[in-house]
């Protein structure tokens, strides 16, 4: 027993990720935490997307299930789990059955290397970014399998479109990523790194987020990635694979119930995954804004208050809306529920003010906040951009983004070489 406690406690004093420390117990705990956090994030995204889209279109969005539709995602989940699971008679059974699992596996496995903080990652790999790109590119296999195994026209066309799209945009995406990795090699030894934690530490050491590095080269690379990542995740305006007006629902037309919800889960966690790649490579990962410019202890204190303040703001929003609820007795339970939710959020906020807690969760907060910004952008795109035509999409990928990516890569390499050889010999 003592040995077990010793094994569990030994990690706490080490300053590493559980993977690097080789501690199975904490690795499992981290995996559970990431999986749970991701599921909550997907549920929250489901509600937020419907709500924000509705407000953009001057509608109310979900209002019936729970106060302001807060329980809508849970109702949806129960509905999906209880629905009949239909498999078309002419479908290829094994492939049809496997496809959603492959998509989910690919979408969740990438989070093994996502660095939520210097020690808050499940593990750090020498090939971190390569691993993320590789494993997330496997999800296209699941989509192709789903489309083919359904043995129906719309899913097949959807799968063909999405695989063509993902394969072409992967090229531009890879070039943008390489130009960011080149920037990590601007140190005394002249060797870069592919590890996700190493990339953020390089930005910390150089005192600059890579989006601002060699202005505007970093910004252009970031822009290429930001466009390509929307195409990679098959989201509007590049959602040709599931264009409702043309293909009913694309590759998952024949899926229902639990299997369909797996595709849904995978889509949102893939969105979070690519956003975290963008945050890690260009936006400084877990670093707070201005870590070098405003580095006095006063600023440290101010920035460490942000997580708590954010949750208190959420709580205040809940209370404000609870007060504004109609006074009719039928709304009493909803009002109490909303106020109770506000109290929970407020308590979380207060806990986050404790210095011991806020020191540990700060990096996670900044990382999550940056990713949340991307998630909002995804919804914003969906609410404002019209869908591309397929030839326009291919033209964009091969004739605009790819040459731009190549140009940025060559220029970045040239400038980096100049800086190493001439300015800092």
């Amino acid at each position, binding site marked *: 027993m003592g040995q077990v406690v010793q094994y569990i406690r030994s990690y706490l004093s080490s300053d590493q990720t559980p993977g690097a420390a080789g501690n199975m117990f904490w690795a499992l705990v981290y995996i559970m935490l990431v999986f749970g956090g991701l599921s909550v994030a997907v549920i929250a995204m489901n509600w937020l997307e419907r709500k924000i889209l509705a407000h953009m279109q001057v509608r109310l969005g979900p209002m019936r299930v729970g106060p302001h539709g807060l329980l809508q995602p849970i109702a949806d989940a129960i509905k999906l789990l209880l629905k009949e699971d239909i498999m078309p008679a002419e479908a290829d059974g*094994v492939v049809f059955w496997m496809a959603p699992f492959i998509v989910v596996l690919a979408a969740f496995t990438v989070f093994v290397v996502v660095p939520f903080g210097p020690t808050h990652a499940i593990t750090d*790999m020498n090939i971190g970014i390569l691993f993320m790109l590789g494993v997330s590119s496997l999800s296209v*296999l699941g989509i192709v399998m789903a489309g083919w195994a359904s043995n129906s026209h719309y899913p097949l066309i959807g799968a063909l479109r999405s695989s*063509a799209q993902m394969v072409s945009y992967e090229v531009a995406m890879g070039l943008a990523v390489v130009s960011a990795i080149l920037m990590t090699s601007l140190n005394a030894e002249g060797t870069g*790194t592919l590890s996700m934690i190493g990339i953020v530490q390089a930005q910390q050491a150089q005192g600059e987020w890579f989006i601002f590095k060699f202005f505007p080269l970093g910004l252009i690379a970031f822009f290429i990635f930001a466009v390509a990542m929307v195409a990679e995740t098959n989201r509007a305006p590049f959602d040709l694979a599931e264009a409702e007006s043309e293909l009913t629902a694309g590759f998952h037309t024949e899926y229902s119930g639990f299997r369909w919800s797996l595709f849904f889960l995978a889509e949102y966690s893939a969105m979070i995954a690519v956003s975290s790649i963008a945050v890690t490579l260009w936006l400084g990962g877990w670093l707070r804004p201005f870590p070098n410019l405003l580095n006095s202890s006063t600023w440290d204190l101010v920035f460490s208050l942000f997580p708590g303040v954010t949750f208190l703001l959420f709580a205040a929003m809940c209370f404000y809306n609870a007060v504004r609820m109609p006074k009719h007795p039928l709304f009493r339970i909803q009002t109490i529920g909303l106020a109770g939710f506000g109290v929970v959020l407020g308590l979380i906020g207060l806990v986050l003010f404790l210095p011991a807690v806020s020191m540990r969760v700060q990096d996670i907060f900044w990382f999550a906040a940056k990713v949340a910004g991307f998630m909002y952008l995804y919804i914003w795109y969906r609410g404002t951009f019209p869908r591309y035509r397929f030839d326009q999409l291919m033209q964009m990928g091969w004739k605009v983004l790819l040459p731009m990516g190549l140009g940025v890569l060559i220029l970045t390499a040239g400038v980096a070489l100049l800086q190493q050889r001439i300015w800092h010999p």
Partner: protein
Amino acid sequence: MAPVATPFFFYLFAAIMVIGGIMVITRKNPVHSALALIVTLLAQASVYLMLYAPFVAGVQIILYAGGIMVLFLFVIMLVSIDRSIRERQFNSQWVVGLIAATALGGLFIAVYTKGTNIFPEHALSIVESDNTQQVATMLYGQYMFPFEIASLLLLVAIIGAVVMAKKRI
């Protein structure tokens, strides 16, 4: 940290690779064959990882499993499955097959028995932490010329494919 590269994992991945390889040639449905090939390639990537070559494993996943196999599936899905299932799967070239199998098997046995002379034993130094950097220095330093030749070859292949596929350029 205890090494993960235990014999158990080697035999596990080797078994997956062999079973996947057998399935590639025995399945009648070409899509099933392609999927079995993907399983084989992924197991191969795991074996690379066990040999402390994470970069090669990552490239294997990106290029073969994520890139080339998707294009494979892409083409196969457009082929009429009904017709290809009715086609003859094996062409009964027993003599040639037997000779080739015997030659390969003999080679394997020879390497296995006299292997220590051909491939001298090295004490395995675990260089996982800077594997990618070492690959880079090798590729762009010592083996720069062969590397460039190989990429030129690929470029020629790409241009050839475009010339053959497009009537008017």
